[in-house]
């Protein structure tokens, strides 16, 4: 926790590119509470914050770890940075906005991804049991279950990766999900005989508190919103 704050060094003086990426866990969220917390973070930094950093999205710039970003796309809007930072991170510095990945994964996106992961896990487990033990009992329903499982996994991975391409994949899978839950929901209502055993999407996801119906809508909304956040500054 005593990391040297990369954004505190004089590079910020270069003016045009205020550092929006502390590049590590030490983003300002907690420090926004002056006088709290046990001195874990001596660098409660109102000053650099106020002087050189225009970001007002502290939550949007958090990141699970410096290592997690290394493989990611360098921001095309950032001039490349030939001299390595002294910071313990290869984060490309000098972006004034959170970056697509950080924006996708943080804030509401963090909770959304958690719920998506939960559904991916649940749907996969359920589908594996259905396909593995009694597939012939209700082939259509079980194939749809498997499809739902795949879609949840793809959407989860797409959101977690948070690159431009993976977000497009997430848009497609959220759309498939929405169409699927509406179609299967309606179909299972009209022709219950075709669904002798339930799927995640049966009756619009009633067995799961209708979360399967809401989730793709929230996913699509969040993908739009986070794009706006990433491009806002």
């Amino acid at each position, binding site marked *: 926790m005593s990391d040297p704050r990369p954004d505190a060094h004089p590079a910020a003086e270069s003016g045009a590119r205020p550092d929006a990426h502390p590049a590590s866990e030490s983003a300002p969220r907690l420090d926004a509470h002056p006088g709290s917390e046990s001195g*874990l973070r001596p660098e409660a930094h109102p000053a650099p914050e106020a002087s050189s950093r225009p970001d007002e999205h502290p939550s949007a710039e958090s990141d699970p770890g410096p290592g997690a970003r290394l493989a990611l796309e360098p921001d095309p809007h950032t001039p490349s940075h030939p001299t390595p930072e002294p910071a313990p991170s290869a984060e490309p510095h000098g972006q004034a906005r959170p970056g697509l990945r950080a924006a996708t994964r943080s804030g509401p996106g963090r*909770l959304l991804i958690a719920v998506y992961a939960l559904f991916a896990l649940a749907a996969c487990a359920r589908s594996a049991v259905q396909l593995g033990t009694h597939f012939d009992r209700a082939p259509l329903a079980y194939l749809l279950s498997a499809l739902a499982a795949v879609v949840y996994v793809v959407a989860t991975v797409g959101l977690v990766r948070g690159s431009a391409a993976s977000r497009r994949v997430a848009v497609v899978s959220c759309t498939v999900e929405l169409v699927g839950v509406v179609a299967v929901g309606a179909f299972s209502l009209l022709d219950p005989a075709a669904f002798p055993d339930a799927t995640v999407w049966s009756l619009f996801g009633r067995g799961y508190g209708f979360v399967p119906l809401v989730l793709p809508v929230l996913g699509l909304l969040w993908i739009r919103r986070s794009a706006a956040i990433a491009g806002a500054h």
Partner: protein
Amino acid sequence: MVDALTSVLNWVALGAALWALVLVVLLRPPLPGRPDGWAYLGLLVLLELGLLAQAVVGFVNLATTDRDVEALTFGGYLLGALLVLPIAVFWALAERTRWGIAVLVIGCLVVPVLNLRLDQVWAAVPGV
């Protein structure tokens, strides 16, 4: 199945969810290194140990019962319940915001849901 243990776990999980909700409001992530952070994480560790005990007992019951229980589903819920909290804590603490802490609320609420399904599978109630 293991009624006493399961209902204790459910109540503890609900309590932990409520506690996490308070932390969401206070914007105070349960970080290790602070007394209240340790207290909260300690509670989750206890809960996880309880779930582990439940899994052991559950598998023993599954192996010894002569009733017809859907073994794969039942085992899946037993093991799945073990995964939820560690993943939730990992994902929640990576971001010290309200949204991050809210992940803990959801994670804790999942435990009673899984336990409910576990009981239903054990009692052979048709699945949702």
